[in-house]
């Protein structure tokens, strides 16, 4: 349906995207993962026809849309990272304005505005000025605007940034429903692994402009099939303990958080007893020690040596 073929994009001396290949089939939810600066937003901008690639081609229904983007523009709805709404207008006024931008008019426009308000749960707030909305309500309306013209493909650039868990959950359910009930294709970028894990059928992982992994959730997690991810939990850590872990020849990717350390070891090596000895030696008040099922976060850590939100 939609393909990025060997796409590169340079901004002066910075190469934001390097030889990116992607394909998106109708009705699937695609996740685009990566930390800040990975090139996700540039890839999304190319997909959205907002910028032209320096090299490569974008094809929609087998036809190039780099120079003639109109067919793709008619088929997509874009949810930008920013709250791309007029804060001084009401929810309804925003929807009416953008509906007209999407060439809707008359009774069709009014009907779509009502439907979208219902979908995003803002029917009773339709006359309220957006400025007075909570962050979550603004995000929902931001998505609603992109859905007005019933696009075939919904492109969402980090749509849940900075909102409360309840609104986040609402948005994830809305996306899931749109895909399930309307067969809407969704391209979803985030640096929240759990969101992508929950929503997406296939995942592309980017880092520093490169595509470093792609596949279904299970395929991605298989990358770690020969290794274990071990989680150690304690009240506090000592620097000596951490240095000792990092210096161990069978331990990689030691990631330290306040009360949890995750690390990766080969499946054939048992380091449990050594870790317990180390905690005793350095006076660490150990709470738990277990092998975790690999997550996308672990895969990312494995591939890049960095946590996604670093």
């Amino acid at each position, binding site marked *: 349906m939609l393909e990025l073929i060997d796409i590169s994009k340079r901004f002066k001396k910075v190469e934001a995207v390097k030889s990116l290949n992607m394909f998106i089939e109708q009705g699937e939810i695609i996740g685009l993962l990566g930390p800040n600066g990975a090139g996700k937003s540039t890839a999304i*901008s190319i997909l*959205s*026809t*907002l*910028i*032209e690639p320096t090299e490569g081609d974008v094809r929609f229904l087998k036809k190039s849309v780099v120079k003639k*983007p*109109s067919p793709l*523009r*008619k088929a*997509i709805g*874009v949810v*930008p*990272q*920013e*709250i*791309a*709404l*007029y804060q*001084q*207008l009401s929810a309804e*006024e925003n929807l009416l*304005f*953008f509906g*007209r*931008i*999407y*060439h809707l008019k008359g009774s069709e426009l009014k009907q779509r505005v009502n439907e979208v308000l219902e979908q995003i749960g803002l029917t009773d707030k339709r006359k309220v*000025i957006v400025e007075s909305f909570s962050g979550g309500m603004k995000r929902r309306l931001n998505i609603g*605007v*992109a859905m007005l013209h019933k696009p075939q493909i919904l492109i969402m650039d980090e749509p849940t940034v900075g909102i409360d868990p309840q609104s986040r959950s609402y948005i994830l359910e809305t996306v899931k429903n749109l895909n399930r009930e309307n067969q809407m294709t969704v391209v979803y970028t985030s640096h929240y692994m759990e969101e992508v894990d929950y929503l997406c059928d296939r995942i592309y992982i980017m880092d520093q402009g490169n595509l470093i992994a792609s596949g279904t959730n299970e395929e991605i997690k298989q990358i770690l099939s020969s290794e274990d991810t071990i989680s150690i939990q304690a009240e506090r850590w000592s620097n000596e303990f951490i240095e000792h872990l990092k210096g161990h020849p069978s331990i990689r990717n030691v990631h330290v958080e306040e009360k949890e350390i995750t690390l990766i070891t080969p499946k054939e090596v048992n380091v449990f007893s050594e870790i317990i000895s180390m905690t005793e030696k350095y006076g660490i008040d150990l709470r738990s020690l277990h092998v975790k099922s690999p997550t996308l976060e672990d895969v990312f850590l494995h591939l890049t040596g960095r946590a996604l939100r670093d």
Partner: protein
Amino acid sequence: MLYQLVKKQLLLLWRNPVQIFYLFGLPIILIFILSMALAGFMEEGSPELELKVAWLEHEDEVEQVNQFIDEMEDLGVPAEALGENEYLQMVAMLREDVLQGEDLQEMIELKIIDEDQKADVLADDSYSGLIEVPENFTYDMLQVLSGQSGEKPELMLHVNQEDGIYSSVLSQILEQFDKVLTTQAFLQQHSLDIDIGDMQAVTNAGEQIQIDQMDPISSRDYYTVAMAVYTGLYVASTIGFFATRERQDQIFDRIIVGDLSRWVYFFSVLISGFIMAFIQLLFLYCFSYLVFQVAFNDILAFLITTFSYSVSVGGITVLLTAISYRFKSDAIIGLFTGIVTSILAFIGGSFFPIGEFSETMQQIGDMTPNGSGLSAYIQLLRGGNMKDVTSHLIYMASFGIAMIVIAAMSFPKRGAAR
């Protein structure tokens, strides 16, 4: 679609009380304050003049006119052809009809003096000047006017150099009087059909000075116009600021993804700036008409001037937007609002009539859109018509078009505004 974009811009402005105050409330407050504060300086367009002038004649004019008539009759010119005797008494005309005429009598206190008082008058600083009529002045002048002699006599003017503007005014009156006489002499020398009766025009000399200056304007007239054109510039930065926010908030991206041409957006900004400036100017002038009685007699010329100035403002609006989009920064809007607008207002004469200092300053001021607009409106308030302001109209419209062209060349291509 253009209509929807423009309507949305105007709705956004309407929902922004702070900007509404800046564009509509603040100018009215400024007009009140400035017109009150500077009323003494500006009232009736010039300070009140009171001149004390001494007048010394060394001839008997009636005797000289009679002598001239006798000689002309001897030459075969009938007395009737020379017109009324009183029209030949040009010195009396200058003294009674010009210096003590209806227009100048309140300004000039004329003292007739004798020869022996001359030295005292010249030493007296309370006098702005002394006009001395030399011997045989009238006779010699009539000879010149009738083509009998080529030596034109001159009145002698002693001015008090320390009296600045007062002595200057006196000199101008006499120059005007002399100019009329010279014109008469020229006509006589080039025509056999002598009509000395036309010398009545001399009595209008004072009025001619008034006509050159056109109708005076009050400080409220001046500052209504000055603040209207000054705050009109803020329309450009306000609409430009809204447009910049649309880029920052990715609303512009959303519009482009809606498959709308960037040129439709470009023209929506241009038209919004134009319409807002037009509405603002009409509002301020309607308010000033109702409250301050600032009235334009030539409504059509007023509307065309307002249209032309609004084109300039529209041009600036779209240029600010294009530059801010190109450089991905709203710094240009801040620079324009904080510094450039004040400089333009100063040079353009919005703070005080800077053009009165020199012709050059006036010309520089007229090169700013607001200065050109101000000059055009002032001309109209002084009784001018469309012809008087044509050059300003052309300049403002050309300025606006030039801004639009530069903006169109600067407006970033697809993706370059991100």
